[in-house]
C-alpha cells in the first residue's frame, strides 16, 4: 500500500507570491494538486482572485502560463487542436502552399500546446462552467492520460511534462461527478476584514490607515445590505480605493454621497437599493 514516505523535496511547495496572498487552506489545496498531479478546481464568488491564482502559481513555479478562456460555444476538442479546413479550402482554390500537407492546417489549442510544450507549464482552464454540460466530461480522458491523437494525421501527442492544470468555475452549472472526482477542490472564501486589510495593503501599500478603516467599513456594510443583488467583491474594492487615491479623497463616510459609488455597485437597481437602505436605516439591514 501507500505506506512509503516519499521525500518532501519532490515538488515545490506553493506558498503564494508577494502579490498574491494565500491562506493555509488554499495552499493545502494547491499543494495537493501539485503532489498528486490532479487538476485543481477553484470556485468562489466572482472577484475573489480565481484567475489571479493561476498567475501566482505560474510565477511561483517559474512556469509559463497558458490560458484557455472557455466560452459557451467552446467544445472540448477545440482545446486540443483545430483543423483549419477553411484555410485549406482557400489554399486549394488559389493553389497557395502545399495543400496536401495536412499538418499545416492543424492548429494546437491551449491544452494541446500545454501537452506539447518543451518545459512544464501551467494551464488555466478559465470558467469551465460557461461551456456545454458535457464539456468537462469530454476532457476527462485527455486530462487523465495527458495525451491525445490528432485524427487527421494520426499523430499522437504525449505530454513530456505533465502540465499543472487549474480550472475555475463560477458555478453557473453543476459539473459532472466523474469530473469532480478527479479534481482537487478549493472554494475561495470571501476574505474577512483582517485578511482584506492585508490584501489592500499589498495592492495599495502605504495607504492612510484611517482611509483603509473607513473604506473597509463602508465596503463590508454594503456587502451586508440584503437588497443589493450584485455584492461588490475584492477587485471592486481595490479599484474603488485606486479611484479614491487618484481623486485625492482622504475620508469617506457611508452615506448617500459616498464618492465613486459606481466603482462598487454596477447595477442601477443596486444603487437604488443602496439609497433605500440608507434611508430606511437599520430596519432593513440583516
Amino acid at each position, binding site marked *: 500500500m501507500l*505506506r512509503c*514516505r516519499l521525500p*518532501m523535496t519532490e515538488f515545490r511547495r506553493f506558498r503564494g507570491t508577494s502579490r498574491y496572498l494565500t491562506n*493555509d*487552506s488554499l495552499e*493545502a489545496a494547491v*499543494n*495537493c494538486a501539485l503532489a498528486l498531479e490532479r487538476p485543481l478546481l477553484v470556485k468562489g464568488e466572482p472577484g475573489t482572485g480565481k484567475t489571479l491564482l493561476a498567475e501566482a502559481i505560474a510565477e511561483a513555479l517559474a512556469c509559463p502560463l497558458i490560458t484557455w478562456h472557455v466560452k459557451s460555444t467552446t467544445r472540448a476538442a477545440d482545446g486540443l487542436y483545430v483543423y483549419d479546413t477553411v484555410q485549406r479550402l482557400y489554399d486549394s482554390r488559389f493553389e497557395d502552399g502545399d495543400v496536401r500537407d495536412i499538418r499545416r492546417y492543424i492548429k494546437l489549442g491551449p491544452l494541446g500546446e500545454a501537452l506539447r510544450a518543451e518545459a512544464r507549464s501551467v494551464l488555466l482552464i478559465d470558467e469551465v462552467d460557461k461551456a456545454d454540460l458535457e464539456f468537462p466530461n469530454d476532457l476527462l480522458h485527455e486530462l487523465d492520460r495527458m495525451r491525445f491523437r490528432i485524427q487527421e494525421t494520426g499523430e499522437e501527442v504525449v505530454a513530456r511534462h505533465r502540465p499543472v492544470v487549474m480550472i475555475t468555475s463560477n458555478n453557473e452549472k453543476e459539473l459532472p461527478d466523474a469530473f469532480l472526482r478527479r479534481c482537487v*477542490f478549493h*472554494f475561495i472564501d470571501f476574505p474577512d476584514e483582517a485578511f482584506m486589510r492585508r490584501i489592500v495593503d499589498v495592492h495599495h501599500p502605504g495607504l492612510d490607515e484611517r482611509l483603509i478603516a473607513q473604506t473597509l467599513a463602508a465596503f463590508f456594510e454594503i456587502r451586508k445590505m440584503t437588497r443589493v443583488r450584485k455584492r461588490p467583491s475584492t477587485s471592486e474594492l481595490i479599484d474603488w480605493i485606486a479611484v479614491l487615491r487618484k481623486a485625492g479623497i482622504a475620508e469617506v463616510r457611508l452615506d448617500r454621497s459616498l464618492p465613486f459609488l459606481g466603482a462598487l455597485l454596477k447595477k442601477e437597481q443596486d444603487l437604488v437599493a443602496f439609497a433605500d437602505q440608507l434611508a430606511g436605516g437599520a430596519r432593513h439591514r440583516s
Partner: protein
Amino acid sequence: MFIRFLYELRARQVPVGVQEAVSLAAALARGLHESSLDGFYFTARALLVHSERHLDDFDLVFAEHFRGVPGAAAKLLDELLEWLEDPATRPELDAAERASIEALDLAELRRRFEQRLREQRERHDGGSHWIGTGGTSPFGRGGAHPSGLAVGAAGSGQRSGLASAGARLYRPYRSDVVLDVRQIEVALRKLRAFAREGAEPELDVDATIDRTARNAGELEIVTRPPRRANTRVILMMDVGGSMDPHALLVSQLFSAARRATHFRELRAYTFHNCVYGEVYETDAHQRAVSVATLLGECGKHYKLVLVGDASMASYELFGASYGSRAEERISGIAWLGALRQHFERSVWLNPDPPSAWSHYTVSAVREVFPMFPLTLDGVGDAVLELTRGRSR
C-alpha cells in the same frame, strides 16, 4: 481508522468513495498534511469535498469527530496523534525543534493536546492555553512555547482547522437552505437545452468541404440549422397574502429568471392564491391574460413553473371562481388540472419547507403537480423533473 470518518461523511450525503480514500491516503503518505491537524483538515477537505454545498457537512463531521463527541472517533484521533509525533514527515522541523519535542514527555503532551482539543470550541489566537495561533501555549502555530507542538505551518491570522470547522463558515452554501438570486440563476441554468432546429440555416463548413472533396473539387454547400437555446419557460407566481413572508424570495426567483439569457422565451405571470381564468403580466401594467389565450399561444413544449405556498381557504381552491362568463366559473383546482394537462412538463415550487406541507389544499395541489421546496436541492429536482424524458 479514518475510513470511519469517510463513512460518516457518506452518511451525511457527502459523496466520497474509494477514489477519494485512495487519494487522501496518497496525500498523507506524501506528508501533505505536514503532520498537523490543520494540515489534515485542509488536505482532507481539498480531496474529499467536491462542491461548496458539502463544505458545511464536512465541517460538521470533522468537528464532531475531533471533539470526541462520539467515542468511536478516539481511534481516528489516535491515528492523528501518531502522525503528529512522527517527525520524519515534517520538513520544516529543524534539529533543535525536534530535540525539544523529543525532550518533552510525549505521552503527557499527547494527553493534554487531546484534552484541549476536546475542550476547545472556537478559534483562538494568542494566549497561553488553547491550541491556536500565536501565543505561548505548547500547542498551536506561530507560537513562542519552547517545546510546543506546532500545528500547521507558520502563518498568521488564519483560522485553524478545527476552529474553522467549528465556525461553520460554509453554512450559506448548503444546498438545502433557501436560495439567493445567484444560486437560483445557477439552478435555472440547468434548464438550458440546445437543439438544432428552426431559424436561418448556417454553413456547415466541415460537411461542405467533405462533400466538395468527394465531388472532385466542385464546390458543394451544405447547411444546417444553427444550435440555439431551445427552452421556453412559463413562470407563474403566487402574490397572494399568505405569500408575503416569501416576497423577497419570490422576487429573487423572478429576477434570476429574468436575467437568465439561456431561455428562448420566458413568460412570467402572477396570480392570487390560485390560478383561475386569468393570470397577470408582471410588468407595470399588470394586464390580465386569460388562461385560455395563454394555452392557445403556448404549445405543450413550454415548461410550466408555478411558485406558491398552495395554502388557501378551501373555497378558493375547490369553489367556482367569479368569472363573468360561464366557462370561467370553474374551480381553481380544475384550472390547475387544465394547466397540468396542457403542458408536457410542469412543476410547483413551494417556498414553505416540506414539513409545513400539511395544509389540505397543499395535498390537493400536490396531487395535480409534482411539488418541490424552493431550495437549491428542490429547484434542482424540479429542473430534473422538467427536463427528464419527453412525455409524461
